[in-house]
């Protein structure tokens, strides 16, 4: 497998503010590369640098081996991009938008109708094709934007938070489409701040205050970070939380839904047993205590705690 995107020491500043700080990673051809991180962590800025929309302040970016500074035009012909914020023409109908962008990418007229039919059927766009894009609800807009960005069959697509603001059914449809794309050999670079979506990805990179703090496959991320995760179910959520947070055995305890997730020290061999003992000695009754597979959110919380605020961020990620 070749390398689709190679990023080395990418820095992007806005004035004095460093939005992307010394980021390095590579995206392999045909994989679904998940770019994670909370809002404002520099995901969109990185994508814009990869698409040639923003010039890097420092570092190098190569897409399919082409340097973005010198070969932006060639790169543009090989990528599809779905921006985070809706960027199609609101006064053009869905169909007019798709046709316009197909023309911009030079999709031959001969196969256009068939290709449009294919994509629109996959994303179930039929009912809204003649409606002005500006009148569509967020879910429809995102589907239309996705259709527009993949219609010309680019070998590499950048999707910036494609699932933000869409309903769960559309969300599932999106991930199915992304899987299909990867099946067909398309490289998909997708950002999200919903950590659970990371499970769909081949590999992940996690951004935090402009820095890349971890990368690897979902399993690697889980086993490397937030290893000893214990889930506690109890009627006394807040008392339990206080006890666990005060305990030496526990690195971090957070409320997770209606339970508590406690990350225990990596040295512990049976963390669930340790937690049970801690709670028993504090006379707190529990419904269940069990070692669990950490979720991606656990991983992120663990990493975020370790890296803290940007002033304290140590150099580089660990991937």
């Amino acid at each position, binding site marked *: 497998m070749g390398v689709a995107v190679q990023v080395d020491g990418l820095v992007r500043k806005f004035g004095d503010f460093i939005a992307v700080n010394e980021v390095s990673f590579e995206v392999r051809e045909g994989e679904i590369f998940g770019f994670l991180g909370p809002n404002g962590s520099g995901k969109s800025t990185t994508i814009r640098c990869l698409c040639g929309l923003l010039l890097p302040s420092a570092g190098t970016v190569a897409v399919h081996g082409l340097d973005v500074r010198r070969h932006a035009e060639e790169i543009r012909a090989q990528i599809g991009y779905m921006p985070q914020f809706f960027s199609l023409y609101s*006064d053009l109908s869905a169909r007019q938008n798709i046709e316009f962008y197909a023309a911009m990418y030079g999709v031959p*007229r001969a196969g256009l109708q068939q290709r449009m039919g294919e994509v629109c059927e996959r994303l179930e766009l039929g009912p809204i094709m003649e409606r002005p894009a500006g009148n569509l609800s967020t879910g429809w807009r995102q589907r239309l934007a996705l259709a527009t960005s993949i219609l010309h069959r680019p070998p590499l697509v950048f999707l910036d938070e494609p699932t933000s603001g869409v309903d769960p059914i559309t969300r599932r449809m999106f991930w199915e489409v992304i899987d299909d794309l990867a099946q067909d050999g398309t490289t998909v670079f997708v950002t999200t701040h919903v950590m659970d979506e990371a499970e769909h990805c081949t590999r992940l990179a996690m951004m935090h205050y402009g820095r890349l703090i971890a990368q690897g496959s979902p399993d690697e991320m889980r086993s490397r970070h937030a290893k000893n995760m214990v889930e506690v179910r109890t009627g006394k959520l807040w008392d339990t939380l206080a006890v666990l947070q005060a305990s030496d055995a526990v690195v971090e305890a957070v409320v997770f839904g209606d339970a508590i997730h406690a990350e225990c020290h990596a040295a512990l061999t049976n963390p669930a047993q340790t937690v049970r003992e801690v709670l028993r000695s504090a006379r707190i009754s529990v419904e269940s205590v069990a070692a669990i597979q950490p979720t991606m959110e656990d991983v992120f919380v663990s990493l975020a705690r370790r890296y803290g605020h940007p002033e304290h961020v140590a150099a580089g990620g660990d991937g």
Partner: protein
Amino acid sequence: MLRFIQVIKKEFIHLRRDPMALRLVIVAPIIQLIMFGYAATHDVRNVPVAVFDGDRSAESRQLIEEIEHSYYFHLIQTADDPRDIERRLQSGEAMIGVQIPRDFQRKIMRGTPAQIGLYVDGTDSNTSGVATAYMLGILRQGAASMQIRQARTEGRLRMAPPSVSVEPRVWYNIDLSSINFMVPGVFGLILLVLTVMLGGLSIVRERETGTLEQLLVTPLKIWELLLGKLVPFALVATLDASVIFLLALGWFHVVFRGSLTLLVAMALVFLVNNLGFGLLISTLSRTQQQAQLTAFLFIMPSVLLSGFFFPIANMPVPMQYVTYLIPLRYFLEIVRGIFLKGAGIGVLWPQMLALTAFAIAHFAAGIAAFRKRL
């Protein structure tokens, strides 16, 4: 199909769906032409006049009739209280107030000077100055002819008739020829405003609404993008210019002595200049509002210093030098020269050369400033 043709098609869809743009492109030029064509000319017509007749004699009525029948004035309901005149001037109902004194008839009979009160609202100094001159003319002439008639009937003809002096300012009004001067100027002005404004919005509009982000990641070339964006505006401006030209000749009966080909050619050069300048503004602005404000800040002095209203020769000398930096100045000289004097390349070549140089410089700067980046 060629990509820039698709961009042109898209721009026309925007134009068609945008009521603001339609107004700017179609309605505004025609209204501007009619407004400037009528209002900005110095011709005085139908100036509202309020009259207080304190005498109510045959003579005073005759005088009022003369005012009423004049082509220049429109008598609004005659006031029946002298204070009424002031009120009407203040409210703007009347621009001129005339107060005929009680002893008007008696004085005319005796051949002694009669004093008529004349009140003028000088807010619009141009119109009021000319209107006052006309009014003075009517009043003096009217009173004088009455006195002469009276003198004749009394056999006092040996007496020298009171002098009939007509205010020289009457000649200020160049009457119809001011339309000839103004309308070709309006032609240039409308082209300037329309194309700088449209060009000014071209890029920044997409930047502000966010659509530029999607457009810029396509392989569309810069020249395709700019051509696709500006050609529709050029077409629209050409259409507007044709309508204005036809209205100028058909409606305002402006003389046209020169070559139509030359006018079209120079209008196109001017258009390129303005679109290039607009593009430059658009590329450097972050918001549409900023672009419009910047365009306005350049259009205002352009109009003032171009000789549109005031002859450049009447400006202070340092200002006259500044006018050389204003493309509209050259275009107005060219347009007025072609329209009124039938001037050709032989006479107008310096202006044409200057305008062409500006057009090339502005367009090149607009393209150079444009980057396919956010």
